[in-house]
């Protein structure tokens, strides 16, 4: 794996000047993912925060060829780019070994983009799909997605007198991707750079479709202090609400085991979207969520042992 020193010497492929919020996880993830890849890269981007904030014409933060067409289709449009590349390679019109990377938020990945994601994964296009998962439709103003945590307040799952925030647990997209029998699936966070960089390096070494779901703190939607982005991401892993693992050719492996599994309240208390869960009247809901996190964690440990 590349060392920090080596990474620091590499040419930046996602450069400053973009209009992402201070403390945004997406920009950090994009920068780290791009730094982790040494080969020539072509990027596809779904509509979302990262896209709108990094390519306001005539400016672009992308120091690599980059294409965006719509919200739900980055897997399909990048499939087309990759197919074009394969065709040119076959015809002897290009020598370079090119890496293809798709970026999509959780809305463009878990929800509206799920069909094209599944299609591209099933067809086995050689690309890495990175979901920067900030757990809601942040670009349109914090609406719930199927990646939103249970109990979270969003603008379409608001906390009211009758309903205490989002009613469902998030979709387990990593498992869905594993079920596609693709060579590499992982979760990660920007707060542990070596975890993310290592996983990206691994992912792009496979000859097929690979997927990394990266939790992306959103200071505007969660919201949290912009200065604690990395800390809050690490805390998600330490509370096991966002465990870090990888699935290589179907084999699960934990990539981070917290020394002491912290209660989810440690994570919740830093984010206003969960503030209501810490009130006494919502104690049963809080317990239900903790129980689900525990169950999922135990199940993951079993998968990793097996």
């Amino acid at each position, binding site marked *: 794996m590349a060392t920090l020193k080596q990474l620091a010497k590499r040419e930046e492929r996602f450069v400053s000047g973009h209009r992402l919020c201070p403390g945004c996880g997406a920009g950090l993830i994009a920068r780290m993912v791009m730094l982790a890849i040494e080969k020539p890269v072509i990027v596809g981007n779904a509509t979302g925060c990262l896209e709108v904030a990094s390519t306001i014409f005539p400016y672009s933060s992308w120091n690599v060829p*980059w*294409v965006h*067409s719509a919200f739900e289709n980055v897997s399909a449009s990048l*499939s*087309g780019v990759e197919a074009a590349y394969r065709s040119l390679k076959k*015809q002897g019109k*290009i020598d*370079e070994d090119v890496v293809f990377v798709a970026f999509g938020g959780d809305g463009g990945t878990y929800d509206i983009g799920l069909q094209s994601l599944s299609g591209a994964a099933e067809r086995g296009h050689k690309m890495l799909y990175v979901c920067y998962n900030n757990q809601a439709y942040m670009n349109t103003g914090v609406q719930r997605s199927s990646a939103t945590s249970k109990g979270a307040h969003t603008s379409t799952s608001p906390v009211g007198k009758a309903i205490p925030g989002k009613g469902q647990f998030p979709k387990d997209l990593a498992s869905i991707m594993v079920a596609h029998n693709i060579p590499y699936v992982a979760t990660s966070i920007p707060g542990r750079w070596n975890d993310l960089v290592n996983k990206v390096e691994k992912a792009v070494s496979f000859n097929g479709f690979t997927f990394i779901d990266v939790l992306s703190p959103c200071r505007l939607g969660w919201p949290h202090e912009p200065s604690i982005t990395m800390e809050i991401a690490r805390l998600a892993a330490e509370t096991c609400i966002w465990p870090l693992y990888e699935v290589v050719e179907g084999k699960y492996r934990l990539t981070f085991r917290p020394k002491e599994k912290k209660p989810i309240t440690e994570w919740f208390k830093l984010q206003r979207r969960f503030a209501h869960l810490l009130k006494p009247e919502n104690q049963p809901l809080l317990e239900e969520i903790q129980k689900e996190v525990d169950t999922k964690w135990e199940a993951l440990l079993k998968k990793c042992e097996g």
Partner: protein
Amino acid sequence: MKLARTGNEAFAEAMRQINPDVVAAYPITPATEIVQIFSQFVADGIVKTEFVLVESEHSAMSACIGASAAGVRAMTGTSSQGAALMWEMLYIAAGLRLPIVMALVNRALSAPINIHCDHSDSIGARDSGWIQLFSENVQEAYDNLIQAVRIAEHPSVKLPAMATTDGFILSHCLETLEMLSDEDVQKFIGEAPERPNLIKSLKEKKPITIGALDLQDYYFEHRRQAAEGMFNAKKVIPEIGKEFGKTFGREYGFFEEYKMDDAEAVAIIMGSTVGTAKDVVDVMRGEGKKVGLLKLRVYRPFPANELAAALKGKKAVGIMDRADGMSAFTGPVYPDICAALYDLPDGRPILQDYIYGLGGRDVTKEDIRYIFEEILKTAKTGQKDYTLKYVGVRE
């Protein structure tokens, strides 16, 4: 070489001869055979194409957009609901100035669900920025698809283009096809003119961003440039149609005028009904009735001035619309023709609209004769007593 081919076979053969770098497609009746036949070409290794068997038409067009943005020739084929599912991406293909070429088999849009011909699918996409070439028969479909490549890729155009056939009527019927040799097709379409693209920018290490956010300060200019591409297509389409004629003996323009010279009553038709209508014109001419026919081949760009010049002085014109725009006014082609003629200082014909053949409803010679008799009546009286009639429907 003279062969018997269906519309779908002709489209697939043209696609093979064009030999695109990428084809991304999804099956849909009645266009499925295009994909099937092409699959065999891929399986037999006789095309260089990377064939992307996507999970929907939306992804088909998205993949074509990706491939075209990467700098290669990309094609697809679809129909009806498939084209409707692509709708979002059709606009994006045009807005990004990507010369994607599509074989579109015209089929009615749901609901009620129906698999037979009308033009609501392509006409539904009329404002998307796609060049639209309608075909009277299998030969024209084949010729149109080949020309579409040149038109779309022309450096002054750079817009996607579709060639259409009437579902089942052309897509599934055997007709005589004068097929060109593979070499002739390759020679005619040539190497695609170079455009800024992802792969080129990668090779040259001058990375480009395609599909950036374009706000109040630039969007309008970019849409204006795209619109200019469509204006330029008006110049390019007849040039390429002439070149095609010079090379292969079949010349194409915006439209074909059939027995129009001294015609008092004219029908404007797109697609396969033209063939039947030509027979009716012949019969009625034999009866001494001054009827003529204008076959509209190019619907987008719309050849307004050329149509005005061709229709000037005609007493009455009937527009046959094989789609219903649900405007509580007329079908969609009528207002275009009406607008084209509005600025004529004199010699402006009376117009009447006839919506016909929806959902594959058979269009008989009697139906067409009825329409011609109606237009003749109007031509004779000089009085327009209605704007729209539905023909061939029980009501």
